[in-house]
């Protein structure tokens, strides 16, 4: 009987690999991974989705589930962290510092982000821009996508000259270039909380533990995430 994990879509490359490793173990468990936007997943869990574990890209939605008593008490941990990066479209020179680049955006240039009020990457990004005091400069240039991948795609296709995405988003073969990383202190720390839904079975506990194991950490790290928990 596989264990079902609901996970934010951006975790797919890493989690697929971890699932493969879990299955390789002698006492290996099968993982069933369901990826979607964090809000959709959270809402589904509210309505009884058959998830045993949930990894959100967004603390707020985990808070909602927590308040409704859907989480197994004490099981919530911040599993991963991430960072924001400024990316530029192919052919745009990215040699200036971050703040300067943003402040001196050429006319007609666009800055692609996630929805600044709804999508986590958009919310974090706006915070960072405000901290760096460039929000008013770029505000009218911002184009928002329904998720962070849409923003990435706008930049990759050259429609938008710049974009703000997670460090984990531009993969190895992305056409975009990373201009700079936003300072960690320019926005609320980016957290991917993990929790067990409802009362755990031994199998769920096993997977929960495996996700926090060294083996999993290595994989997450390899994909650019920042494993947060101290080693057990």
């Amino acid at each position: 009987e596989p264990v079902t994990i609901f996970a934010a879509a951006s975790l797919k490359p890493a989690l697929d690999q971890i699932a493969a490793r879990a299955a390789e173990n002698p006492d290996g468990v099968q993982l069933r991974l369901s990826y979607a936007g964090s809000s959709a997943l959270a809402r589904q869990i509210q309505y009884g989705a058959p998830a045993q574990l949930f990894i959100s890209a967004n603390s707020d939605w985990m808070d909602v589930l927590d308040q409704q008593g859907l989480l197994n008490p004490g099981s919530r941990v911040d599993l991963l962290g991430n960072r924001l990066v400024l990316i530029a479209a192919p052919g745009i020179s990215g040699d200036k510092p971050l703040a300067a680049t943003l402040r001196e955006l050429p006319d007609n240039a666009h800055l692609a982000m996630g929805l600044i009020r709804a999508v986590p990457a958009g919310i974090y990004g706006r915070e960072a821009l405000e901290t760096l005091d460039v929000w008013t400069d770029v505000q009218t240039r911002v184009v928002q996508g329904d998720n962070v991948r849409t923003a990435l795609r706008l930049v990759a296709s050259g429609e938008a000259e710049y974009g703000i995405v997670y460090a984990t988003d531009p993969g190895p073969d992305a056409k975009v270039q990373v201009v700079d990383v936003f300072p960690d202190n320019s926005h609320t720390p980016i957290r991917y909380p993990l929790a067990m839904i409802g009362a755990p079975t031994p199998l769920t506990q096993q997977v929960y533990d495996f996700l926090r194991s060294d083996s999993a950490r290595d994989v997450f790290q390899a994909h650019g995430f920042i494993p947060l928990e101290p080693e057990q």
Partner: protein
Amino acid sequence: MTGWLGPEEWQAVALSLKVATWSTLLSLPFGTLIAYVLARHQFPGKQLLNGLVHLPLILPPVVTGYLLLLGFGRTGPIGSWLEQTFGLILAFRWTGAVLAAAIMGFPLMVRAIRLGFESVDPKLEQAAATLGASRLWIFATVTLPLILPALIAGAVLGFAKAMGEFGATITFVSNIPGQTQTLPSAIYTFLQIPGGENSALRLVLISVAVAMGALVASEVFSRRASRRTRGTPT
């Protein structure tokens, strides 16, 4: 072939086919009925029914999916009733994907079939009645055969929509591989990951191929049906 697509992707293809087929087949009778009522009858609340049918078209799919979750989820009023009465669970099952696809395709189907009903000459139905046929029999032997092209058009729209439906489906039944992961969900998932575009493209091609096959089949069938009705012009 198996090398070209992973087992998960094949599952998605099979599931999408299954969902689209069932949703088309199941919604066809209802769609036909509603279309008939809308085309042929005047009654209070007709505009409301018409609006309700069109709702899934007007609302962003996510909203429809959310509303489905509210109503047909395991805790929702209809969902819990269905579960208690028939043991039928929709949420997070492929059956729910069928419901989502059916609902999303419903306005398209109803509109097409309704046009069919509106273009049938009631004089032919009258002629059948004078020959002794009851309303039901007339419907089955005169009206339905005459609207066959419209039925096919409605079914094709419904099927195509079901093959492409994403927003409501992923919201209502999530995206569980092998269970509720349809082709569009799989495509979406690939589009979420770095470098996933190629995998997505493969699935898009399959999706297009399947739908094209259905389209061509329906064209052939529809042409034969309308040739029967109109005769070959000499």
